[in-house]
Each structure stands twice: as C-alpha cells, then as structure tokens.
C-alpha cells in the first residue's frame, strides 16, 4: 500500500517534470524560429502566427496529457484498487 503510493507519487513527479522539460525546449525553439521568420519577412506574420499557434497547441498537448494522467495518479489512483 505505502510503496504503491510512494511509487505513484514519484511517477507523477517524473511525468510532469519530463513532460514540462520537453515541451519547454520545444516551445522555446518554436517561438525563436517564429521570431526569426517574422523578423526576416514581417509581411508573413499573420500566416506564420496561425501556424505557430497550431504547432503550439500540438506541442502543448503532450505534457498536458501527461499532467492529466499524473493528476489521475495523484487523486484517483487506479493502482490502489489492485492492492485492495
């Protein structure tokens, strides 16, 4: 029982942390490339902005899904039911 709780807490922390790490790097690269493109060709900004937000949403989704599953582990842990 205790070890299940402890490992679930660890798993939740790792899920949130690694997800945030990857998405942070990814969104940073995305934003920097967008600024480069906008500085080079300012007339393309509206088109680039729509694409950037689309990619932002796609990139953002992965850590958010990880956070949702981590929250599931934190508040409604399904493994506790298996312990009994």
């Amino acid at each position, binding site marked *: 029982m205790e070890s299940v709780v402890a490992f679930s807490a660890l798993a939740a922390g790792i899920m949130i942390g690694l997800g945030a790490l990857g998405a942070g790097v990814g969104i940073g690269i995305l934003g920097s490339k967008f600024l480069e493109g906008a500085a080079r060709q300012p007339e393309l900004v509206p088109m680039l902005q729509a694409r950037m937000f*689309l990619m932002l*949403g796609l990139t*953002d*989704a992965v850590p*958010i899904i990880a*956070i*949702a599953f981590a*929250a599931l582990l934190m*508040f*409604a842990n399904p493994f506790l039911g298996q312990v009994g």
Partner: protein
Amino acid sequence: MAAGSPAEYISHHIQNLTWGKHPDGTWGFAHGPQEAAEMGFVAINVDTMFWSLLTGVVFCWLFRKVAVSASVEKPSRWQHCVELVFEMVVGSVRDAFHGHNKIIGPLALTIFVWIFLMNLMDLVPVDFVPYVSHLVGIEYMKMVPTTDVNATFGMSLSVFALMIYYGIKVKGPGGFLGELAFHPFGKALLPVNLVLETVSLIAKPLSLSLRLFGNMFAGELVFVLIAALVPFWLQWALSVPWAIFHILVITLQAYIFMMLTIVYLSQSHESHDSH
C-alpha cells in the same frame, strides 16, 4: 460542499453524475466513484450529456437567429461575432481542404463553435453549479463536457468514421486498402506498411480526443486545486490569472480540433497513386 478533506473535495469534483445499471440489476444514479466503476459499460454520464446538448442547442439557436435576422444595413453585434467566426472557419477550410465536399464547412464550424462553448463552461466558477445542484439534491455535477473522456472520444470517433467513409467513397475499397498496404515502402514490405499505417490511422482519433480531454481536464483540475487548497480570500489571485490564460487554451484547443479534422478529412480525399 466544503466539508471533507482536500482530497475528498477534489475527487468529488472530478466525478461525473452517472446513471446506469447497478450490479444487483436495479437502475439508478451511482453514489461515488466505486459504484460508477462497477456499472461498467451500461451507464451514461447524465451531466456530460446535459451540458453538451445544452451548448449544442445554444449554438444552433444563436447561429440560426443571426442567420434569419441578418441585415446588410444594420448588422447587430451578434452578427459581427458570428461573421467573424464564420469567416475564420471558412478561411481555414479553404486553406487546408483540397477536395470537393459540401459537408466539410458546416462540420468544421460545428466542431469549432461547439467545442468552444463546451470548453467555455470551464470558466464558470468550479463550485457554482455543483453547489446549486447539491441544493436540489443532485450529488455530482461535472460541468465541462470536454473534461469527460467519453465526450471527446465520441467526437473523435465520429470524425474517424467520416475519415474512413470518405476514404472508401473517394478512393474505393481497393484504393483505401491499397493506401494502408502499399504506402510508405512499396509492395515488397507489405506487412511493415500495414502495421505502420494502421498504427498511424488509429493514433489519429486517439490523439485528437486525448489532446482535448487532457487540456481541459488539467485546466479544470488546476481550478479545483486552487479552490481546494488556497484560503477563500486569496483564491482570486491564482484563479483569475489562470482563467485569463485558459481563455487562450480553450480557443486554441477548439481551433486545433477543427483544424486537424479538416486536415485528416482532406487526407482521406486525396489519393496517393503517384507514390
């Protein structure tokens, strides 16, 4: 409502109002997550159905009202809003959809506005509706339909069915299966192609629904966490910035769901015979 520990409060707020068949054969509402889980498949989340249908009716009513009373000389404020949304959706469809299909425009508009309205329920304070429904004797009330994985999977599986239907209709059964079997590596590596293409086909509705669900569930959970752990006189300091940020998230998620639907359906209208 405020009674109990933070963990009880949170698990109460992420529990749907489930109506279904109890293991002993009687029908009724589940009292708690355990009973809801025991019902298994023969159960329906009444709150999800109610709020999603309500927002759907609001969407149809509003857009119909604007369309009927549209005027060139004196456009109303609502007409401006609806035209703004409409032009944005039409522009996205023109940019991303390269087939000929009348259903795609209305579909994209419905998906965008409906998901946006369902996500918008997230900005209603977390205890507002559950408290009122508690007063009239309803035990659980989860307001945001898109925080229920059943609702998002319902939508993404509908899109998936349309993808397969139009894939078969446009390319023929042979063309559809041929795309699954011969596409990335040619005829020599048929089993590898089949596995790869099937996985990427199934990943589409899965990621579509889990993306929307994950975003909305995590967002709702942050609101609930703030309400559960922060003293009531300080809650606005955290929940107001999060709500403002969340306006971006709910619009972005509705836009992404719409955009990916258009892109996926566009893919199923294009044949890859040249490969």
